[in-house]
């Protein structure tokens, strides 16, 4: 599947998963190489979040395999986190009664020591200065945009090999979406490996190295984002125009 020469950080092979009897993903395969930003787009309810949750272990794998740096992932999410998967889930899923700082510290839960935690904090505050100003504010009192930034900051505190980001633009005002995508693009330029889920392919046009179109749990098209945007019939069929 891989169309790059670089070794794959994340590799999915015929992934099947879902909830109880409901099968959502019906055999998904693709790779993400080091330093790439790969995007999965697709209509609502077709398995994008399930895909990320399957990678991070929140949804059990029913078939196929997933590996990180060639190592098969484990079944428990905390073990997958230890392998270097940092999942920024849809809807942020912050710890609502904790401060911004404590949320960030939870991101560094597996970090080896105080010095490393401080180093990561500094890095996150440099990228998201607003979080430094708000460090003592309780998460539940933040605005939607601030919450999203805490979610991303917490994911960065994990210092994973790959960052999974689920619909970072969801429910935010256009101006804030622009800020969030500015941050993601900066992360990508600095060489992070990112798997990004987004509903709107136009938003990732000049950002993603590759794009996969997920429809009803299957990848129906893969290629550079610009190619998808030029294909009106695909956009009309899968993304409603």
């Amino acid at each position: 599947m891989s169309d790059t020469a670089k070794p794959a950080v994340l590799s999915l092979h015929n992934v099947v998963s879902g909830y109880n009897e409901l099968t959502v993903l019906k055999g998904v395969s693709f790779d993400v190489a080091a330093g790439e930003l790969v995007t999965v787009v697709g209509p609502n309810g077709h398995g994008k979040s399930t895909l990320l949750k399957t990678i991070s272990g929140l949804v059990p794998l029913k078939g196929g395999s997933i590996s990180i740096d060639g190592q098969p992932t484990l079944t428990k999410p905390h073990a997958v986190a230890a392998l270097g998967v940092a999942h920024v889930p849809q809807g942020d899923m912050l710890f609502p009664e904790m401060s911004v700082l404590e949320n960030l510290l939870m991101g560094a839960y597996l970090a080896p020591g105080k010095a490393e935690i401080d180093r990561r904090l500094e890095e996150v505050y440099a990228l998201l200065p607003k979080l430094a100003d708000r460090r003592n504010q309780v998460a539940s009192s933040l605005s939607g945009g601030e919450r999203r930034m805490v979610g991303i900051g917490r994911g960065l505190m994990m210092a994973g090999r790959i960052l999974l980001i689920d619909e970072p633009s969801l429910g935010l005002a256009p101006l804030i979406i622009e800020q969030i995508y500015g941050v993601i693009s900066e992360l990508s330029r600095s060489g992070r490996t990112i798997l990004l889920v987004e509903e709107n392919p136009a938003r990732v046009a000049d950002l993603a190295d590759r794009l996969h179109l997920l429809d009803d749990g299957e990848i129906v098209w893969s290629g550079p984002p610009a190619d998808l945007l030029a294909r009106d019939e695909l956009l009309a069929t899968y993304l409603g125009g």
Partner: protein
Amino acid sequence: MLDILMSVLVAGLTTGALYALATVGLSLVWGSMGMLNMAHAAMLTLGGYAAFTATTTLGLPVFAGFAAAILFGAMAGGLLYVLIVRNLLKNDKATFESNVMIATVGIGIALENTILLTYGGQPLKQPLSVDGILKLGPLNLPYQNIVIILVVVVMMAVIALLLGKTRMGRAIRATAQNRDAAQLMGVAVNRVYFQVLVLSGSLAGICGVMVSSMTQLSPPLGNDPMLKAFIMCVVAGLGNLPGAVAAAFGLALLEAFIQYVAGARWGFPSLLFVVIAVLIWRPSGLFGRTQIRRM
């Protein structure tokens, strides 16, 4: 008049301290794992008897009595996790709450009866009690009450520091607030559940010693504090620790004053009245979150 008021206050604060200790153990387990531990009462009793055995039967010093209560309470909590809770969690998560409640009712009864068979039903004197009264002018402060309040204040401080300032405590709170997110951060929730039950068990053990030092040791010792603790939890909002402590002291003071003004028999009904009122007007408790994340 003032001295009567003061002695009612001291009595209220003492029961408040006892209720708070029982409530925190119960509330911690509920808040972080959605588990209503009906065996909490028996774990309290176990702590009281463990202290009795260590000091009276084995003749060990007071310190060892406390240690035995903590140790046995913690062991009961740990075993409860390993033998029962862990296995119930493997099954359908949706039915965990009701399953674990029924299972712990059974375990509580079994444990209470084991204690009954081992020690007999006759009340025993808790050796870890202090006699004497501290006279401060017109004020009479029984040493026992002072000890209880001090022990509870120390325990609360320890728990607050543990939950508030340590990595383990942060993981426990994270699990309570968003279990899936905690797992994504690398928290092994099964280990958190084990830690929470061990912690709650050790609190129950100490609480058992304190309660029995005010009264006597008997197998049903833990039932009354557990019932009261449950009331405090409901009033505070299940899973809210600072709220539970506030409710424990507030309701105990209310109970003490009503008992003084209207007679002893009116204490408990007035607590029940408060619970019903709270359930009607603030179903999630006075300080409760509107929703508690379940399994």
